[in-house]
């Protein structure tokens, strides 16, 4: 494979993987704090992407302006969704709570996809930004991709520093590690859970806009993204940003090369097959992080 094509495929994989990692961050934070595996998580990305592309089509605004228009409503939606539908389930026994969260988030997935498909059409859309090309010798890269990469890096760092240094960020980590201990320190658990759910949703909203700039989105593609995010947190560990980023990049690059060297139709299979293989090969490793 010539070097310039190799670099382009690698960059595609890195971008894809970076976006997967953003999706995984949200899923992982929400699971760590609220013990909810949100099956509709990736669907929020799909819908954010579709809405963003519609806004772009209508207005032609810079996607940077579109991001807050998406993130704020998605954040609010996440908060209300948790407070109204998921929080009341905590009063139930464990198995009933699991059944409740699974049914509610899966029902939400089906409903949101269909509503969006009904309102915006089921076809694939994207945000066709015009982009200058960055030329470095033989290698030609669209500037948009470089900006997206920068955006992913910036978001990851921002999240990292927020969790590390902000009071609420620390509280989120504390609740993840020991909810009772955190309550003794004065952390309001239910509020922390709802806000984390909202933040995870907001994050996926940003990812949706970025995704739609490089790849087509449609209302029904969300679940396959949730599957990828799940594989990533199984590999990278719950609440572990660095682990999720590494796992995300690996998955993205693997998919990009599979699509290029073999066939795009097999790329989506990698995450599920990888997940099953990991579960067979590393049961001990899994058991150890499942306890944490």
């Amino acid at each position: 494979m010539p070097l310039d094509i190799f670099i382009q495929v690698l960059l595609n994989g890195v971008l894809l993987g970076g976006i997967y990692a953003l999706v995984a961050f949200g899923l992982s934070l929400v699971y760590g704090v609220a013990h909810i595996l949100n099956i509709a998580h990736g669907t929020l990305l799909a819908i954010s992407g579709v809405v963003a592309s519609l806004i772009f089509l209508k207005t032609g605004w810079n996607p940077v302006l579109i991001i807050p228009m998406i993130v704020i409503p998605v954040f609010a939606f996440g908060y209300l969704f948790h407070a109204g539908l998921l929080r009341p389930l905590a009063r139930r026994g464990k198995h009933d709570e699991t059944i409740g969260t699974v049914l509610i988030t899966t029902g939400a997935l089906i409903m949101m996809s269909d509503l969006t498909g009904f309102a915006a059409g089921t076809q694939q859309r994207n945000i066709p930004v015009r982009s200058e090309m960055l030329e470095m010798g033989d290698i030609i890269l669209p500037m948009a991709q470089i900006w997206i990469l920068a955006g992913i890096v910036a978001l990851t760092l921002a999240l990292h520093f927020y969790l590390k240094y902000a009071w609420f960020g620390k509280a989120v980590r504390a609740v993840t590690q020991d909810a009772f201990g955190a309550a003794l320190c004065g952390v309001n658990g239910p509020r922390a859970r709802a806000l984390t759910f909202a933040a995870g949703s907001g994050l996926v909203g940003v990812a949706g806009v970025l995704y739609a700039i490089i790849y087509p989105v449609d209302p029904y593609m969300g679940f396959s993204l949730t599957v990828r995010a799940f594989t990533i947190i199984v590999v990278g560990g719950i609440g572990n940003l660095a682990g999720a980023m590494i796992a995300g990049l690996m998955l993205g690059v693997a998919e990009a090369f599979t699509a290029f060297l073999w066939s795009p139709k097999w790329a989506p299979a990698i995450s599920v097959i990888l997940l099953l293989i990991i579960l067979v090969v590393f049961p001990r490793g899994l058991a150890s992080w499942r306890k944490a």
Partner: protein
Amino acid sequence: MTLLRVDDLEVSHGPLQALWGVSLSISAGEKVGLLGANGAGKSTTLGAIVGHYPAQAGRIAFDGRDETRSDVNSRLSRGMALVPEGRRLFVDMSVRENLEMGAYLAAPRRALAQSLEQVFTLFPILKEKERQAAGTLSGGQQQMVAIGRALMSRPRLLLLDEPFIGVAPLIIRDVMQALAQIAADGITIVLVEQNIHRALEFVERAYVIENGRTVLEGSRGQLLNDASFGAKLLGLD
């Protein structure tokens, strides 16, 4: 002056009643022990005092104000802090972060630097290990973090639930000395402890809880001389 007053407290865990009538009266500056067999209701009593378990019946008053129905945070901000059984640290966070979490509420947050200073003076080893993840510390050091974290909220009443479990015997002495220092600084201490000898070495007065009720109360001297006391605790009667 009475700092904490508990009258006929009753608490249930689901369908099972754990406390059937616990009464305590603790003055400011006292060091008081809660003794009793496993499952007698000591931990539940502490949990109910800080508001983690709701009281079914009875009254809890702190510093002259009724707190029976108030939530964990308002009791915490009024000056009650619990060092729970099993320490409940944030094991992947650093020692310093664990301590900082103790000052999460607004008022103690303003005094963060000063409180940290005080905790590090009390437990100099924690200053040395401040960047280390709490889970990697020894049992005794973890206990120090747990006590330090509770102190960060600048409490007037410190409740400790079996703080010497999993602590090496030599370190127990250090922790005991630190507790004595805390008491000397004017903080009221309630200690739940299984080892009577150790408990009576430290406290001035103790209550005995049996099957969810306070059945006996006395000063250190009274309890040491009470022939039935040791037997009662060990179930030798």
